[in-house]
């Protein structure tokens, strides 16, 4: 019985932390954001050297073959450093899609370059996970796609896209396929890239090697756990920053961290966020070890963590006073990262409704 991280996992956390501190300092994050770049090539390359791109890709395809808990630790570190890098789609959802639903030849063709970080994959599953807005939806027929997909993750400069259609299937499309129109979507979070894809009779490679419905379920579950972990990382960093700032900033002749109101704000943040860590670990672990529990646990993990995340983002900003509201300190990068995580792939309200449905609590 061990509910905790292995030595290897702690080392992974450690080396990731050091790496990101070095290659993704705030100034660099700001640079990427100011230039509206899709991601930081430096960070992506550095992560690639640690094997992040292939973390979930089986070893026989050149990956690390690690568990989703390892991926969650990476997501947490990325959130902690507001790292401007692809991850959720390209390193988590796409490998799962190919492993679960790709044919052997599709796996052989795409998994090795994904694992090596040579190609980036965007994923379009928003309509399945969050519901349909603005008449989005992609239909597949005779290997051709039509319609549009919104909120494509890791969209910017993606080489391939994996698209969920309205019928439960999964398809792979080249980033430069004829008939494909790409429209960047600007969100509050300038550290990650979102976009819209419009399809006019676009040629697609359907994933035919497994149960696409199951693969989609597992992609969405995994991505939700990643977004929760990203918020955990961003939130814990905001708490740390608030505690640090409160220990330095003086008002009325004393550091503000000695005022009980400020202390209690910090204590409340920590005591709300810390249990989320345990829930995320469990959810991530279940993806490999107890897959029948994962959908429920992923829904719980993301809804609780992103709700707490909103509270932390706001409260940590308040602890920083006016400085927290400026662009100068850059605290808002974490605030916005948490804001985006909350809404992507299922809002808390929607996830709780799904959780109720899974448990048979909703009358047909």
């Amino acid at each position: 019985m061990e509910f905790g991280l292995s030595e290897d996992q702690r080392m992974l956390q450690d080396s990731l932390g050091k790496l990101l501190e070095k290659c993704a300092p705030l100034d660099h994050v700001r640079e990427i954001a100011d230039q509206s770049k899709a991601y930081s090539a430096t960070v992506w390359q550095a992560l690639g050297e640690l094997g992040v791109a292939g973390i979930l890709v089986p070893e026989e395809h050149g990956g690390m073959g690690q568990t989703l808990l390892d991926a969650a630790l990476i997501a947490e570190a990325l959130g902690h450093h507001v790292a401007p890098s692809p991850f959720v789609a390209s390193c988590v959802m796409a490998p799962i899609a190919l492993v679960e639903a790709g044919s052997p030849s599709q796996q052989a063709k795409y998994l090795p370059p994904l694992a090596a970080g040579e190609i980036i994959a965007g994923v379009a599953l928003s309509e399945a996970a969050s519901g349909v807005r603005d008449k989005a939806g992609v239909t597949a027929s005779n290997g051709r796609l039509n319609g549009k997909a919104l909120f494509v993750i890791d969209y910017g400069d993606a080489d391939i896209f994996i698209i969920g259609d309205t019928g439960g299937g999964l398809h792979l499309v080249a980033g430069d396929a004829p008939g494909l129109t790409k429209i960047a979507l600007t969100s509050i979070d300038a550290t990650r890239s979102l976009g819209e894809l419009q399809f006019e009779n676009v040629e697609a490679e359907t994933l035919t090697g497994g149960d696409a419905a199951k693969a989609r379920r597992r992609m969405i579950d995994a991505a939700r756990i990643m977004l929760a972990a990203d918020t955990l990382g961003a939130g814990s960093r905001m708490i740390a920053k608030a505690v640090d700032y409160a220990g330095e900033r003086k008002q009325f002749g004393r550091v503000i961290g000695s005022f009980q109101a400020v202390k209690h704000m910090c204590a409340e943040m920590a005591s709300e966020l810390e249990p989320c860590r345990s829930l995320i670990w469990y959810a991530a672990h279940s993806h490999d070890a107890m897959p029948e529990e994962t959908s429920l646990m992923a829904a719980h993990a993301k809804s609780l963590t992103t709700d707490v995340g909103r509270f932390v983002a706001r409260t940590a900003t308040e602890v920083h006073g006016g400085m927290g509201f400026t662009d100068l300190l850059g605290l808002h990068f974490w605030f916005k990262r948490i804001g985006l995580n909350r809404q992507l792939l299922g809002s808390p309200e929607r996830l709780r409704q799904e959780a109720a449905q899974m448990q048979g609590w909703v009358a047909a």
Partner: protein
Amino acid sequence: MDLAYGPEYEAFREEVRGFISTHGDKAPQRFGVARPSDELIAWQKLLIEHGLTARTIPKQYGGYGAEPDILKSRIIAEEFTKAGLPSGIANQGISMFVPTLLELGTEAQKQEWISRTLHGEVIWCQGYSEPGSGSDLASLQTKATEDGDDFIINGQKIWTSTAASADWIFCLVRTEPDKPKHAGISYLIFSMKTPGIEVRPLKTMTGHAEFNEVFFTDVRVPKSQIVAGRGQGWFVANATLKHERGMLGDPNQAGTRLKQIIDLMHEEMLDGERLIDNPLFRDRLTQLQSRVLAMQFHGLRLLTASLKGEDPGIARLIVKLQGCEINHQLAALAIDALGEIGVLYGDSPHLRAHGSWQHRYMFDLGLIIGGGTAQIQKNIIAERGLGMPREPKVAKA
């Protein structure tokens, strides 16, 4: 209880409506920019002449010279809001500096500044907060050293909203460094063109530079440009801040936003269903409606207290805390109801309402912090409103 205004006031309302139908087409279409346009200046002049702004400011200072009448002011505001017309120039010079000068300025200062300020000829900015002095404003460090008939000012101000376009500044500086912190401050006014002043835009989390930092390096200001005497700055500043605090947490603004969300939830569709049909969002909407209505009626209660010259006590002290929080929660509901669309910003496709909900969500957080953080507000409510003990003095370490 009588929610009617009575015949005298309804007659006044008709007058206002008459003005609007006669002159409404002269109102500038775009407003709200820091520097008033010629059109807006002309409009302001017309309004003053008809007693529709600067109404109670004496004629000799360029105002209309009417007796104070809160209900008439309210009727003017109601009618202008209903007609969607700008109710004249709105800036810190008019809302904060003019009342301060009326209360505490010399006759010469009043003659020099009030009319020109009211007529949009002089634009002011406010130099109060400093990077090191937020909640503890009285700890401000900007120094004014004596040099003959002048002060030499060195230091830095922050959160100065119209600094880039302002002509003059009303500014708190430390003139007596040896006195206790509240007693060493003076209130100076000087031109923003004085050599040694640098204005840098201050970008906030919204991505916009709604404020500025202002740096002073050996800025020379005649000693005569002081309001209410040396060491009186803290007293003057508090007179000014009274006017600012009244403006934050306006329940009618929340009412407008509530209406916008009600519309949004009727229009937006998710999976082919209107958002208003989602019981969870609808419940939050109704809950916020309760709070907005309560604060609107609360506003009527405060208005009545003003009319009677009564001190509404704690009822007044809670307005900023409640009002800003409700606004922030309204923005949060709109974002949540919009789901993934709610995170879009800037000039994104699919953006709703020009991204204003996200902007408000962030800017309102700034308002919760600014003008007295929520923590300071709670201290004030507890100490002044409930008579609880002040924070005890800390022992010297």
